[in-house]
């Protein structure tokens, strides 16, 4: 067995970042009753790469992206931090990238970048599409607003092209959302998001409401579209195994904090945060011996109460005394540049076995049919 690391990428190398989020905090409500939904999150998405954000409901993953894109409504308030969006500005003559600070941008500036630079695909396509408008109307509206030079037939042409991209027939333009299946609606949403060729597409649980076969089709399609157009993507989901296939880097969020941020394959093979480990062992495997799994004991903390120490310490099997007192910062812990917020990886601690391992342990034995000899071989992958 060899120690393998997927393409080693330093998450700190943010030279070509499309979006840089630093020290970002979001509250719901004001004063003492505020719920701290996102606490000092630092993340970045690099050009043409996929950042996966995994976390359970209430971990702040959706709040983070809504706040960053300034879509968050009251009582959500951005209480600190910066979010810089870099994009090539076609209107300026230089090749230099234009940088826009999203947290302080005016409505007018935001209007310029929304959809054309950053677009978003929401979880529930049924709610995101207007039920009394035909699909074609949605496309028409976007193009009319952002591409005023296009005439009606050009817009229709473009809408048909976009639908074709996601494998839908042109005749769907005349349909209402309720006439489409869940998967088709989600495809329409993706086509809409791509309609102005954005550099960054944010996907907020786009496949959660779909069944597994449709999810697979959409994931395959996203991979193709990304290969074709090269947009960067933030993909939010609670399904960590899905992200391992799809994302370049994964950030795991828990109770408003990023607890681990690493290249996707490393995070899956050798998790370093007890919560990541717990999440990974919470999904029953599709192969191997059937044995009892335990998941993570307890339930996520109440975010309206002030949290002392690490947000995960009450559920953590490896918690130290220190964990209930001081919140661990997100720090780089090894040469792969992965970042973990956990005291266990602090200087003189003995890291528990499962969080120390360097190769994956769950290598399944598979019977591979040898086409030449016709014999079956057991191959350890």
């Amino acid at each position, binding site marked *: 067995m060899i120690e393998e690391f997927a393409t080693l990428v330093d998450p700190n190398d943010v030279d070509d970042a499309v979006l840089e989020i630093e020290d970002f905090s979001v509250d719901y409500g004001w004063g003492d009753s505020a719920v701290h939904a996102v606490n000092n999150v630092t993340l970045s998405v690099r050009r043409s790469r996929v950042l996966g954000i995994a976390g359970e409901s209430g971990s702040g993953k959706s709040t983070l992206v809504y706040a960053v894109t300034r879509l968050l409504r009251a009582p959500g308030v951005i209480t600190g931090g910066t979010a810089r969006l870099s994009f090539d500005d076609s209107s300026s003559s230089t090749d230099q990238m234009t940088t826009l600070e999203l947290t302080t941008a005016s409505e007018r500036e935001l209007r310029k970048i929304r959809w054309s630079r950053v677009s978003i695909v929401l979880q529930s396509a049924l709610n995101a599409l207007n039920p009394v408008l035909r699909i074609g109307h949605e496309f028409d509206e976007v193009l009319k607003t952002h591409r005023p030079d296009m005439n009606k037939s050009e817009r229709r042409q473009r809408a048909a092209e976009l639908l074709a991209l996601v494998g839908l027939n042109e005749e769907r333009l005349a349909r209402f959302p309720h006439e489409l299946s869940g998967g088709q609606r989600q495809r329409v949403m993706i086509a809409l998001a791509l309609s102005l060729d954005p550099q960054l597409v944010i996907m907020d649980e786009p496949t959660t409401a779909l069944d597994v076969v449709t999810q697979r089709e959409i994931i395959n399609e996203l991979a193709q579209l990304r290969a074709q157009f090269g947009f960067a993507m933030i993909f939010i989901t609670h399904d960590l195994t899905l992200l391992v296939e799809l994302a370049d880097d994964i950030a795991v969020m828990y109770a408003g904090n990023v607890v681990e941020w690493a290249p996707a394959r490393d995070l899956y093979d050798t998790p370093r945060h007890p919560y990541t480990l717990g999440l990974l062992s*919470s*999904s*029953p*495997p599709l192969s191997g011996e059937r044995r009892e799994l*335990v998941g993570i004991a307890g*339930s996520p903390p109440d975010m309206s109460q002030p949290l002392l120490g690490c947000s995960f310490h009450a559920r953590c099997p490896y918690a130290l005394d220190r964990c209930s007192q001081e919140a661990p910062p997100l720090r780089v812990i090894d040469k792969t540049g992965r970042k973990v917020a956990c005291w266990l990886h602090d200087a003189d601690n003995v890291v528990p076995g499962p969080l120390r391992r360097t190769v994956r342990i769950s290598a399944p034995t598979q019977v*591979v049919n040898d086409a030449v000899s016709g014999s079956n071989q057991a191959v350890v992958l």
Partner: protein
Amino acid sequence: MSEDVTQLEARGLTRHFVVRTGHGVFRPKRTVRAVDDVSLRLDAGRVTAVVGESGSGKTVLARMLARIVSPTSGELLLEGTSIRARSRRTLAYASDVQMVLQDPFGSINPVHRIRHSLERPLLIHHTPKNEVDDRAHAVLARVSLEPPERYLDRYPHELSGGQLQRVSIARALCVNPKVLLADEPISMLDVSVRLGVLNLLRGLCDNEHMAILYITHDIASARYIADETIVMYAGQVVERSNGTRLIDEPQHPYTQLLIASVPDPNNPLRRAPEVEDRNSQGLFPDVGCRFAPRCPHAMDKCRQVAPPIFTLSDDHSSRCWLHDGHAVEVSLAERAQGGSISTT
């Protein structure tokens, strides 16, 4: 052992819905065959899983078993006694067969305390008033919500999703049912608490010999918990087998597609499956195999004649013409490459 006692049996359960299609007053009627000729047995001490995508008829099946929806045809037997399909659901039936619904946030009344939700079924089922409180305590302890006093006077919004789903299971257990019908009990829960609920169901089955029907679209969780797994497609049972065999050696092309679609980073051999003709999805042909339009192995025969169920081994059967008279082997490697099914 009481392992083999069949608590609830369904024979040829069928439910058709008639819908109007298109526009206008004289638009034609169309029959949707939501569940077609499904037979299954729920034994004490066994978990039977029904797996299928949305629209496969698994929820309608559970509702027929709970007698919320009356079947078009078919027979239900509770402990060997036949129940007339069209007769009304009785209190006695409801006390033997209970249902756990998908969304605990929607299925527990938000304006009442947990105590109310637990005591109501007890009162409806004529439990003596002086026992009600004790029974409510006991049932919360059975689902590991301890101490019960901490939960009885809470409101649903004060509990987490996992805790609420436990309350929902406790409510079903109140009347001491023999059969539990769990319709997607974990799909609305957070990943980290799903296993807890699954282990709870498994425990009820092992320790209290409950017969459990576990409906899910998550085939990995079915593998984890089920003694028998049934795969449904378009209202029909397409494959069934015991233990983990169905998932480890799937035979029906739909089951293979279902398994290949699950993200599984542990298995780099697997390629993403190509799904053909996806625009036809949702429309099932009236003649021939219902899966034929999406099937990578579809033959002419499949489009003309609906396949019967072929028995592959003692406890493994598949509804596919590929298994007609042959023992079919599909190697994992071939399946991974989306190759054709070879006969040996």
